[in-house]
Each structure stands twice: as structure tokens, then as C-alpha cells.
């Protein structure tokens, strides 16, 4: 029985990372109305930048602070230099331009770090396990759960409690109305895109010590983020949280039952949710 309990807690850890991945995607979609295929590439950059900083002998904590800022800045630039010129075009080109961007980033990563994966060490402070009686759990994973929970609260506050957040929420209802009220929507577009990129990068940094960094983790993460968003409902913060946790737990528990099929089961879970609730667990219709 305790193996299942352990896997559920493991699943919560993975699920919080999935949440982090999906929430950025979801916010960007809510405002900009297209799905960012380069989201996985920002996650990939997060993991590799973390690897690079630790190779330089810098600490993991510094990477955790600096990498999201760097990737966020890259996202900000991307929005300003590339995406801004595509908004007036047909909808599919919004998506395709990010597909192109994702390809470029992935190839640049391979160019710089090679096609094989790299290992990222767990920071010294978080090595080893915690023990409470018979319960044993890796410290690092516990840290990831705690850290992402704090981060989720912070994000929730930004969205619900700040002026930027209310502009974002209003903008996802009606961009035109918000700009009529005298708010510079394009500034908010850049900021939100940067925020999305930064959250993906944080997920990348946090994931690096658990699964290493390899060039194709971006597309894999993108697929998972889509599943989470489809399950939870697009544009919903709590949907991303519930979807992420559900998918994480399903994957983790299934990995003890049927290891080869664990990744498959998250897609099966998605299909099941879709058939029962076509707009996701917490999604709005339309």
C-alpha cells in the first residue's frame, strides 16, 4: 500500500511541474488567443541554462533566480520582435511562427550542447532523503512541491490581486475594450508572454536535477502541457492546477503498475476526460 502512497506523492511533485508548464501556456492563450508552440522550447532553455550555470560552478539557487529572468527577457524580445508582426495575419500563422521558433531554439540548443542529454546534479543542500518513521522521500522532490506551491500562490496573487493581473483578466475577455479604456494592450502582451516564458523556464530549472537536460524534452513537455490544459480547461488557473496534479498522479501511479505504458496513460486520461467533459474539468464553453 505504501508504494502507492509514495507514488501519489511523487505524482504531486511531477504534477506541480506540469501545472507550472501549463499555467504559462494557459495565461498566454487567454490573452493572446493562440497556443504558443515555443512554450516547450522555453522550458528546454530553462533546463540547459541551469546546466550551463552549474557547469560554470555557480549554485543551483542562483540559476533558479537568474534563468527565469533571462528566459523571460528572451520571451519579451520574441513578442516584440516576432510575434507582434503576425497578429494581423490569419490565425494559423500565429501558431506556425511559434512552431518555427521552437525548431530554431531546439536546433540552437543542439548546436551549443550537442544532441545527447546532460545530467544536472541535485544541489548539495537537498541531497538525500527525509525520513518520518517508515516514510522515506527524496528531499529535492519535497522542495519542488513546496517551491511550486509558493510560486502558484504568487502567480495567483499576481493574476487576482494586482493591476497587471486585472488587465490580463480583462484583456482575455475583450482586448478591444481594455485598449479603449486607455491601457496599452501591447505592453501587456509582451509582459504576459515574458511571464509565460519565465514560468516555463522555472519548470525547466526545477526539472533539470530530476530528469537531466536533453534537446527533445521541450516537445515532450509541450505535449504534456497540452494534455493538462485540455483536461483542466483552457484559460483557467485552477484548471491548470487540478489538471496538472491529476495527470502527474496518473502517470506516477501507473508507472508502478505498467512502466512502459505510464506515459500512454496520461493521454488515455485525457481522452476519457474529453469524452465526459468536452471543455475540460473547469473549462468554459466556447
Amino acid at each position, binding site marked *: 500500500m505504501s508504494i502507492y502512497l509514495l507514488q501519489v506523492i511523487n505524482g504531486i511533485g511531477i504534477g506541480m511541474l506540469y501545472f507550472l508548464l501549463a499555467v504559462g501556456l494557459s495565461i498566454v*492563450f487567454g490573452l493572446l*488567443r*493562440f*497556443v504558443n508552440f515555443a512554450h516547450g522550447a522555453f522550458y528546454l532553455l530553462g533546463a540547459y541554462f541551469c546546466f550551463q550555470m552549474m557547469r560554470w560552478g555557480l549554485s543551483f539557487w542562483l540559476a533558479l533566480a537568474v534563468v527565469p529572468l533571462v528566459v523571460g527577457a528572451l520571451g519579451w524580445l520574441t513578442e516584440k520582435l*516576432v510575434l507582434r*508582426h*503576425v497578429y494581423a*495575419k*490569419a*490565425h*494559423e*500563422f*500565429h*501558431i*506556425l*511562427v511559434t*512552431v*518555427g*521558433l*521552437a*525548431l*530554431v531554439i*531546439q*536546433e*540552437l540548443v*543542439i*548546436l551549443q550542447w550537442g544532441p545527447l542529454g546532460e545530467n544536472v546534479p541535485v544541489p548539495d543542500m537537498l541531497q538525500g532523503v527525509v525520513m518520518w518513521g517508515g516514510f522515506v522521500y527524496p528531499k529535492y522532490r519535497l522542495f519542488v512541491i513546496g517551491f511550486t506551491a509558493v510560486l502558484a500562490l504568487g502567480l495567483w496573487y499576481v493574476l487576482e490581486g494586482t493591476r497587471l493581473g486585472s488587465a490580463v483578466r480583462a484583456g482575455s475577455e475583450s482586448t478591444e475594450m481594455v485598449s479603449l479604456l486607455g491601457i496599452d494592450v501591447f505592453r501587456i502582451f509582451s509582459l504576459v508572454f515574458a511571464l509565460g516564458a519565465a514560468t516555463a523556464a522555472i519548470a525547466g530549472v526545477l526539472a533539470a536535477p530530476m530528469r537531466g537536460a536533453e534537446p527533445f524534452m521541450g*516537445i*515532450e513537455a*509541450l*505535449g504534456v502541457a*497540452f*494534455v493538462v*490544459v*485540455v483536461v483542466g480547461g*483552457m484559460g483557467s488557473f485552477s484548471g491548470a492546477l487540478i489538471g496538472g496534479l491529476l495527470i502527474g498522479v496518473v502517470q506516477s501511479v501507473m508507472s508502478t503498475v*505498467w512502466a*512502459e*505504458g505510464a*506515459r*500512454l496513460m496520461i*493521454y*488515455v486520461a*485525457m*481522452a476519457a476526460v*474529453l*469524452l465526459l467533459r*468536452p471543455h475540460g474539468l473547469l473549462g468554459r464553453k466556447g
Partner: protein
Amino acid sequence: MNTAMTTKTTTPLRRHFHLLLALAVVLAMPLTMQSGSLASEVLIYGLAAMGCNLLLGHTGLLSFGQGIFFGLGSYTIALTLTRWPLPMPLALALAIGMGALGAALVGWVAIRQRGTYFVMLTLAFAQMFYFIAYSMPGLTGGDNGLMDIPRPSLAVGKVTLWPLASPWQYYGFVAMVFLVAFWLLQRVSASIFGRTLLAVRDNEERAGAIGYDLRLLKLQAFVISGAVTGLAGALHAMMTGIAPLANAEYHTSEMILVMTVIGGTGNLLASLLGSAFYLLVGDWLSTLWPRWLLILGVVLMVVSLGLQRGLWGLGESAWNRLTGRRRAGDDAASQGGRA
């Protein structure tokens, strides 16, 4: 939106013009190219891109799941040719059927969603198919894929009609299949059904309000697309002799989509251009620089930013400029007439 792309009046002459153009390409490749396999690949991926084009250009559906049908086609032909003594054309038909069936299943779920949800679902299903293929090694060979797929000659009884052993012999067979499939697809896109798809693409609400069954129309387009892509996957597996897991990967879906977009979604033949560009430039660049996909990513961004009609559109404008005023005037007149 992008009405200027495909609503050019498709007169019978124009339709035959494209078929003749395709025939010219098919005949020109053996004269200009060294490798029969590369030439076959251009036609095979051209078919797959056309299947994608039928969705993107004609129905307005952006599908990241074409790799599913490509993979299904290649697995099906590999299984039938290695395990059951089925004649090759029948095995090919079975692969087409499996492609169509897969598309019907994926479409049935994905088409309930619109816009972005649909796009995400196609990718999620592509990943799902990959993991299905990966976790069923008994059927698909898992990570190794299926190997040693034979390439039997086209024969009636014991009389060999068309040996397929050498690459150029196989190219001849692929070319024939390609031309027939292209002709059929042209017929479909020029039919009332094809025109209705354009209506769905241009204004879904209005098409629905007129009384068209949107889901059914989209599903039909999806099934046709799946069938063509399944055929392409089967031809590819027969060409290489293997049905690798890579055929079911995201990369295959992405490749098919990128070919379609770079070629241009205005008409079906543009997809052949996209496939030829991708494979020939790729073949040339990959010997010089293994990371040539980087350039491809940049090309895709450029096409999305300022060249939405793709290479075909670029060629068309260049041609109009070259052939002078009269043609350009004609175009302007016909565009004015439409607006």
C-alpha cells in the same frame, strides 16, 4: 481572411494544367536526379503534404497529427507484407483503410473542439499514438520498429507486370500511384464537397447557419486526409524496408506540416513543391551542416510572417512579373471581379 488563396475559379483547363504540371515533374525527376529513392521520397511526402493541405488549405484545420496516419500506414503494410501472404496492392489498400480509420477515430474526438483546442488535441493524439506504438512492441517492434519489409513485384498470378526491385523501378510505381491519387484529390477539391469545405474554412458560422453539417464535413475531410497520408506512409515503408518508431513521432507530423506550409496552402500541387523543397534542400544542406533544420525553422517563421502563400505564391508573383503586364492585368481584373 485568406480568400485570395484558393478561390481562383478552377476551370477544367486549370485543373488539367496542374495535372500536366505534376506529370511533367514526375517525368523530369528521373532525368535530373541521381537517386531514385530521393525522387520517390519527394512524391511520397508530396502525397502526405497534400493530405495535410486538404485540411489546412481547404478546410482551415491545422493538424499536428498527420504522423499518426503516416505511421499507421507504414505499420499496416509492414505487418501485412511480413505476416500474411496478401498481394501487395491489397496490402496497400489495407494501409489506406487503416489511415482512414485512424483519422475517423482521431477526428471523431478532435473535431468536437474548435480552433486552438483542435490544434492541441491533434498534437496530444500524435503523442498518444507514439506511446501506443512504443508500448506495444509485439505489434510494432517498439523502439526498433518493424524491419525487413519485402517489396514484391506487381504481378498477376505468376506473370510479373512491374518489378519493383531497383529504386527507379519503384519510383515508376510510386509515380503512378501519386498521379492517380493527385488526380482523385483534385477531383475532390473541385467537387461540390470541396467547395463546401472552402465555405467552412472561410466562415464557419455562416456555413453552419446555412445548414451544413460542419462536423460531418470536417470528419470527411479528415478521413480523406488520413487515407492519403496512410498511403504515403505505406509507400515510404516499402521504399525503406522498415517501419520505424520515428514514423510515428512528433517530428513526422511536424515535417509534413512544415512541407505543406512552406509549399503554400493555395492549391494541392504546392504541397509537392513544399515536399521537394524540404527534401532536396535538406538532402543538400544536411551534408554541409547537420543542423540545417535551424534554417528550416527560420524559413517557417519567414513564411508565417510575410509569405503566407508559401513558395508557390512567391513563384506565382515572380511568374506574373516576368510574363509582363497582360497577365498581371488579368489577375488584377479577376481579383477586382471577385471583390
